């Protein structure tokens, strides 16, 4: 086995999953101007929904995965109407709200789902050998699904009327409203789509890794590093940074040591901010 190509492939596979986690977070930040500390817990919820739909019933994985996305969409809409709308425009209140949701969901996870790890097994099987690089069908499939969802999101944002409205609200909410954009509906949709992305990330992470109540904690930390590195609120920036962070993590763990990989990731983020304060692809 040659280490470098293996490390590259592993890093890119991780990066693809990080993209989904980070996109949901950056979307909320860019459009709703809310720092969502509960994002990791939404990832965890998505993973458990997929697990129970898939393992607890006779559903096949694609149906379980789609049902998770629909559930997360509904949950996002409901959460926006019930909790997020009243604090819209108030960053501090939003901060407290998402922190509260995070703590609530984490503890709810322990009570409802228990403390033991679960796995979404038997979805994809088989190993793949590409020259000296070894991987699994599972990793390739989950990466492909993540990239497909990313492509759909990019199409929506850059090629549809809805996407134009998203971008308009992200740049100037009041001006967008004056132009006839229903900013309230856009915010609701934004949260719902963000939760879809979190749910998708959870449903895919659960296939590759384990499902457990604290799985979102690391995901949240990583997502924040990614969106800061990529540029706050920048979708292309988040995609680029997720791939960079995935690669850095893999290469550092392989060649230097896993005990400092997290530290190096933060160093990359700090250096990016130092030399490019708006992030890799940030504008404003």
């Amino acid at each position: 086995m040659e280490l470098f190509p293996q490390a590259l492939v592993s890093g890119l596979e991780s990066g693809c999953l990080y993209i989904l986690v980070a996109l949901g977070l950056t979307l909320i930040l860019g459009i709703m101007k809310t720092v969502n500390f509960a994002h990791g817990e939404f990832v965890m919820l998505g993973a458990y929904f997929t697990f129970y739909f898939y393992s607890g019933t006779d559903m096949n994985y694609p149906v379980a995965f789609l049902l998770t996305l629909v559930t997360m969409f509904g949950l996002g809409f409901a959460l926006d109407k019930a909790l997020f709308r009243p604090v819209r425009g108030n960053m501090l209140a939003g901060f407290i709200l998402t922190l509260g949701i995070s703590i609530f969901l984490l503890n709810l996870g322990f009570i409802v789902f228990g403390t033991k790890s679960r796995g979404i097994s038997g979805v994809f099987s088989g190993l793949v050998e590409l020259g000296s690089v070894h991987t699994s069908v599972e990793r390739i499939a989950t990466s492909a699904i993540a990239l497909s969802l990313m492509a759909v999101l990019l199409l929506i944002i850059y090629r549809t009327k809805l996407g134009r409205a998203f971008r308009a609200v992200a740049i100037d909410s009041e001006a967008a409203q004056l132009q006839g954009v229903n900013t309230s509906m856009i915010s609701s949709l934004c949260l719902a789509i963000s939760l879809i992305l979190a749910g998708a990330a959870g449903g895919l992470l659960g296939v590759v890794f384990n499902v457990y109540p604290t799985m979102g904690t690391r995901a949240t930390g990583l997502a924040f590093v990614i969106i800061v590195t990529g540029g706050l609120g920048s979708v292309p920036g988040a995609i680029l940074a997720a791939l960079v962070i995935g690669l850095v993590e893999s290469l550092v763990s392989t060649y230097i040591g896993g005990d400092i990989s997290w530290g190096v990731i933060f160093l990359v983020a700090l250096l990016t901010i130092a030399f490019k304060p708006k992030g890799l692809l940030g504008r404003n």
Partner: protein
Amino acid sequence: MKRNLLICALVGILSVGIVFASCTQTSSTPATPTTSTTPTTPTTPATPATPTTEEAIEIPFGTCSCLSGPYAPWGLSEHWAQEIMVDDINNGGGCWGDIYGHEPGFRVDGQLYKWKLIAYDYKMDSAEAVKVVNRLVYEDGVKFMHVFCWPALYPTRDILEQNKIFVSEQGMGEDIIGPEYPRTFRFLQEPNTNAAALVPYMYDTLGYRTVSIIGDDTADGVVYSDEYGKWMEQVGIEVLSKQIYEPNTQDYTPFLSKAIAENPDLIAGLKVDAPLMGMFVKQARELGYEGDIFMGAPFTWKELVETCGDMENIEGLLSTMMIGEECPLERQQWFRDEYIARHGESEWDGGIVDRADPIHMITIAIEKANSLDPDEVAAALENLESPDLKSFYGDPCWFGGESVWGINHDLVTPASLIKVVDGHPITLATITPPRDAY
């Protein structure tokens, strides 16, 4: 009004989700207590109580435990094992009677005593642990206490020492036992003795000559990697690399890739947390590794099966600090049956067996010392060994550790090597560590 309706709808959706999730849960994972200070006392006797005409005095045995949160699987299994042993001691018969031929309860100066178990949940929060230990010491009058792991032990040391409390512990880490803590004992298979027992067998019988070690960057992980690495080099197994990863890491592919590139006879996970072992093995197989894997810590079977991807992946997996599915000793079978009868088969694991050791060993020491004074009990326990002392891992057992910690307060028991064969964890070998190893 509309918002209220939405809040109601949201609560409804969450409730339905919770009910659905609860209904479809495949294991009988117990609900974790939500209050931190609910005392629990044994309710289900292990065996029918033998009628006694004497009135027994109740002695509180306190536990500062972790009954909720991420460490609850360990805390609960400890607590449940303690309940079984307290019931067994109090009621006589059962394992207690079989091993020691004992009457119900225990006697000091002719007076009959029984244990009363008092357990509080400190939720792995050190500040909470101080409150719990204060309550046990000053409100409940506890003189014998089990403290779950160092996050509770370190911040409560002063209280425990000032009040001369006898402390039992089952966690790794520096500074758990030592001459400055004359009443603290650790009832846990220590990696040093385990490695001293198993590594020569790995070299001689299993034929390993090279190993790549991968471990987490925690106090436990460092101890495991160092101790096993030391013994492996001593017997002639070449340590090709020692890689350390950050706790909470889920993607082991970088470490495994490096290890596989070294082409070792064995990859040793020293240590990988039990819930992550399945994923560790799965990822090694995904990278094309077909060789042997050794875990230096016990796995939880259900989690391992559920997270390994394919049962083929864990075939041949080696582990230790647990007993095989067949439970070779009668006392192990008794304990397993008792545990399963109370908490269900899904909660049982071969690594739980050592949780049963502290209370019955302390009771034996109390009778030997003929005293309830913690200092005298500690002095008696320190000198107890087989055949007067019996461990659920098997015999012989004794207390060692002086060469490392300056005091013989670490329980030394035979070490088991477990192998997954045809989808079942079975005992490959049970080896007593050399007496001078520790």
